């Protein structure tokens, strides 16, 4: 099984309504499992597009910056509390979620990641560490219910999820900082 | 990768997915999910908290009973329950001290009863007979004596 078909299979599996509904019924699973897996499906399907339209990626995403910007924007958009709610209520937003995360975030991420230098990669990880820790802090301390479709406790859970992910990123950055891979490779 | 290996991996993956689908279908469509009640209670004030201030069996409908039960070392309150055959029994359980288990041999009743949590489980008793109720989580020196019966007439 090659990764392109695997990505496509996973993508189809995720949009099956019972699967989608189950994953969306818990806030943290919606944001921290369904959405990242959607990005991963795009990531896996990317070689298909890269080989189909090599000129396009070469021309418009030569240094990787447009691609990574698109990734950040799309992922950032789905981190808004409102978009989560609307994905549940409006089918058009739900559809946009299933299209944008794999194809506008996953595909450009794969194309850009290799083109970015070490500094660029670190900058992206630092950006998401900060964003996740801030979001975590926000969700844990918000006494107001930010999403109408989820309980307050789920919001706090999501906050801790963000915080732990942010910490994992920081650990990774620390590992990169303290352990120079070139000493081993 | 060898072809036979691909087949094997696909089969393995398929088998796991079939398990997932069955488990999910049973849990969500047939509502056969495991006991997961979420209510909390002060474990030191069980006797003063409704409904556990009055443990016992109560008829709540035709062929439907509610059993409010506390578990403590090394007994069940109430014990020696009797219900007519064909009745559905809703158990509402909590522990007054350590962790206990609630199991009825020969049925699918099997639930952890934790201090601080109210556990609920429902079972329909079709066949007459004497069912053995026992604690299946080690709870102390008299754990092996923590048992009672449900008599279905």
């Amino acid at each position: 099984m090659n990764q392109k078909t695997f990505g496509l299979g996973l993508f189809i599996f995720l949009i099956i309504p019972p699967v989608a509904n189950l994953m969306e019924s818990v806030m943290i699973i919606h944001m921290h499992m369904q959405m990242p897996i959607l990005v991963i499906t795009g990531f896996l399907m990317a070689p298909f597009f890269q080989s189909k339209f090599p000129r396009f990626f070469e021309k418009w995403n030569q240094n990787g910056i447009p691609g990574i910007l698109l990734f950040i924007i799309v992922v950032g958009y789905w981190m808004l509390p409102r978009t989560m709610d609307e994905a549940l209520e409006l089918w058009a937003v739900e559809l946009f979620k299933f299209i944008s995360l794999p194809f506008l975030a996953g595909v450009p991420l794969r194309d850009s990641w290799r083109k970015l230098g070490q500094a660029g990669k670190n900058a992206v990880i630092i950006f998401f560490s900060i964003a996740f820790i801030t979001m975590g802090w926000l969700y844990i301390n918000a006494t107001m219910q930010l999403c109408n479709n989820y309980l307050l406790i789920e919001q706090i859970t999501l906050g801790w999820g963000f915080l732990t992910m942010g910490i994992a990123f920081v650990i990774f950055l620390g590992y990169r900082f303290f352990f120079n891979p070139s000493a081993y490779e | 990768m060898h072809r036979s290996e691909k087949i094997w991996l696909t089969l393995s993956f398929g088998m796991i997915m079939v398990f997932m689908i069955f488990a999910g279908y049973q849990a969500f469509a047939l509502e056969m999910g495991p006991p997961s009640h979420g209510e909390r209670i002060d474990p030191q004030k069980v006797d003063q908290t409704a409904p556990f201030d009055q443990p016992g069996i109560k008829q709540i409908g035709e062929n439907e009973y509610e059993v409010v039960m506390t578990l403590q070392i090394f007994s069940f309150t109430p014990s020696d329950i009797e219900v007519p055959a064909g009745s559905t029994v809703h158990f509402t359980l909590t522990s007054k001290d350590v962790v206990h288990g609630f199991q009825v041999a020969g049925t699918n009743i099997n639930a952890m009863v934790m201090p601080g949590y109210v556990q609920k489980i429902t079972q329909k008793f079709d066949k007459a007979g004497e069912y053995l109720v026992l604690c299946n989580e080690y709870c102390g020196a008299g754990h092996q004596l923590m048992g009672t019966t449900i008599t279905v007439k």
Partner: protein
Amino acid sequence: MIKNRHNTFASILVILFGIVLFYFGTDGFQAFTAETARVNQLMDDKPRFPDVTLEDSNGRKYSISEFKDKYVFITFLYTSCATVCPQLEMNMSKVYDLLPSKYIGEDIVFLSISFDPKRDDPETLNKYKDAFNSDGETWRMARIPNQSELDSLLKKFGVIVIPDGNGNFSHNSAFYLVDKKGRLINVMDYQEIDEAAKKVTNILVNETEE
């Protein structure tokens, strides 16, 4: 050089896309949560209070026309709630006290509506109202016994109530103001007591001066 230009162009395009996306996604950088969007939407729509039967703490049954020619200041609650509802009602009583007393009962009526009709029977509501010094006349507490009627009201007013399975509900809270014609004209933050009182007073003053 040319390739670089493509890159820059693509980056700008992507950023523009981002701006457009966020602009439409948040109603022009106004509403980052669905709750804000909902409130904005309600104030634009001004939905009418549907024709439902209320049953208050005295067991009286009536529809919204009971309050004809009066403003109605509404909150939604359930009495078994241990977290937000007591706070909400406490704040409501503060608004009640802050309004000039001459309007109370004449031009405006306070109404707390329970969305847990199974447990909140008139007797329970009667007990609950005493805790907030509600008199049962100018500030009434009522339930809507018919579930489908209740749902239609909640839907119209955008009140989202999710049962958590253990006898509690998760719900959004706000002050709602319905005008003399039974239309929702304002949704206010229930934590800003002074602001809400000022707003309501202004409306009442303008109305009576006309």
